[in-house]
Every structure is written in structure tokens, then in C-alpha cells.
């Protein structure tokens, strides 16, 4: 059994939603980076502070029920809604607000945006 720590993720400049508290478990330990260019620094920081496992969603896939948090670099339409729809806490590194076809799933208690590494703190 690994030991995991909680982090608090706050909205960054111009961002929306949150704060979210993220604490991985043995069942849900993946810090799932669905971003261009590999593991995003925000996902890397969440993984380092929590003890979760950084995972590149563009290299291989993982079921939703293994994901502690999804980190996305969404421009506001598609990825912003998919993970909240599946009840996966979602961190957008861009400063987006609820919009797009899945906007109804994007709520403050499951989504936070505009997040930079310094907006991730030990809880």
C-alpha cells in the first residue's frame, strides 16, 4: 500500500472553478495528463506532491475509475467537459470557463482552470 498525500488546486490567473482537493488512492492513483508534449508540469507537480502516478493519456489509455485527476490543455470546447461528465476531477491549464456542448457537466466542485504549477499546494 502506497501512502498518498492530498493537494489543493486553485484557479490561476483568469481561471474558473475549484479549489479542488486531490488525493489519490490505490484504486485511483493516476495523474492523467491529456496534454500536448507529454506529461504537463502541472500534472508532474500534482504527482510529485501526492505520490500519484503521472500518466500520459496520449501514449496509452486508462479507464476512468483509475484516474485521480485529469490535467488538460483544452481550449474550451471538448476536453473540458468529457472528464467532468465522467465525474473525474479536471484541471485545465488554460483559463477556460464552462462552455461547449458538455458545459452542463462543468461545475466548481469538479473543475478548475487557469492552473499553473504554483497553484498546486500541499493540502
Amino acid at each position, binding site marked *: 500500500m502506497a501512502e498518498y498525500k492530498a493537494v489543493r488546486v486553485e484557479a490561476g490567473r483568469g481561471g474558473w472553478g475549484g479549489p479542488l482537493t486531490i488525493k489519490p488512492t490505490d484504486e485511483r492513483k493516476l495523474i492523467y495528463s*491529456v496534454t500536448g508534449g507529454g506529461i504537463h508540469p502541472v500534472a508532474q507537480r500534482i504527482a510529485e506532491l501526492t505520490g500519484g502516478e503521472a500518466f500520459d493519456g*496520449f501514449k496509452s489509455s486508462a479507464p476512468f475509475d483509475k484516474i485521480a485527476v485529469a490535467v488538460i490543455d*483544452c481550449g474550451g470546447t471538448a476536453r473540458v467537459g468529457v472528464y467532468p461528465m465522467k465525474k473525474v476531477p479536471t484541471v485545465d491549464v*488554460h483559463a477556460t470557463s464552462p462552455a461547449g456542448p458538455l458545459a452542463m457537466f462543468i461545475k466548481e466542485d469538479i473543475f478548475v482552470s487557469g492552473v499553473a504549477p504554483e497553484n498546486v499546494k500541499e493540502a
Partner: protein
Amino acid sequence: MRPAHTRYATTVTAVGEQVPEFIGQGLLIWFAEGAPEELHFFTVLHRPTVTTGGVRPGDLVRIDDKQFRVTAVGDVANENMVNLGHMDLKANGATEAPLPGDICLEELPLPEPRPGTTLVIEGDAAQAEPDR
């Protein structure tokens, strides 16, 4: 008329089941093959051959024999396109992108892509430098 420069070119490999619904809202979402499976249901998956980027207003998007003038480009649209093959094409005629990932097009009916459909984005060669 200066020569056209290809900023992006790709061929569709698969079309998600909810794509027609999104087309009804003037929206086409694209991701390159390799995108996580949970994104496939609303996505046009494709295999690009040109990924230069630098799309800007005034460029032309061709989807098979249909063509659309680009009216606005969001701040992160080119980055997403080059890195992930990801585009949010919105046929809303907007002259300012409502969302940072948007590539806005003239307000015309969008075609329904099929496997084998081609998309090409062309612009003025004098402005070929990617604007990112």
C-alpha cells in the same frame, strides 16, 4: 494573388458517433489518431501529413470539395493543432474567437466527414511563419 502555403493537411480515419450531432451545432472536433479513447465519440480522428501550423484569419479550410474562410483563431488553437492534431472548427462566422481553442469559419453548413475525407488549410505564403 500570392501562392498558397499549406499550413495543415490530413486524412480522416474514423468518425465518432456523436459527430453528426455536433455538426448540427456548427462544430467539428478533430484529434489526431492516438487521442485517448474517451474522446473518440465526438471526434473526427485523422492522420496528418502537414503540421506546420500558423493558421490565421483569411486562410482557407478545404474539407473535400467544400471550402470555408477562417474568420478568427483562438490563442491556443495553433498549439493544439500542431501538438495534438486537435482542432475545434466552429462555423459561426465570429471575427473574435469566443474560446481560446477555436478556429472560427464562415457560417456555412459543415460537411459530415467520412474515413478518407481530406482536410487542407491554406494561407498566404507571405505569412508562412507560424504565429504561435
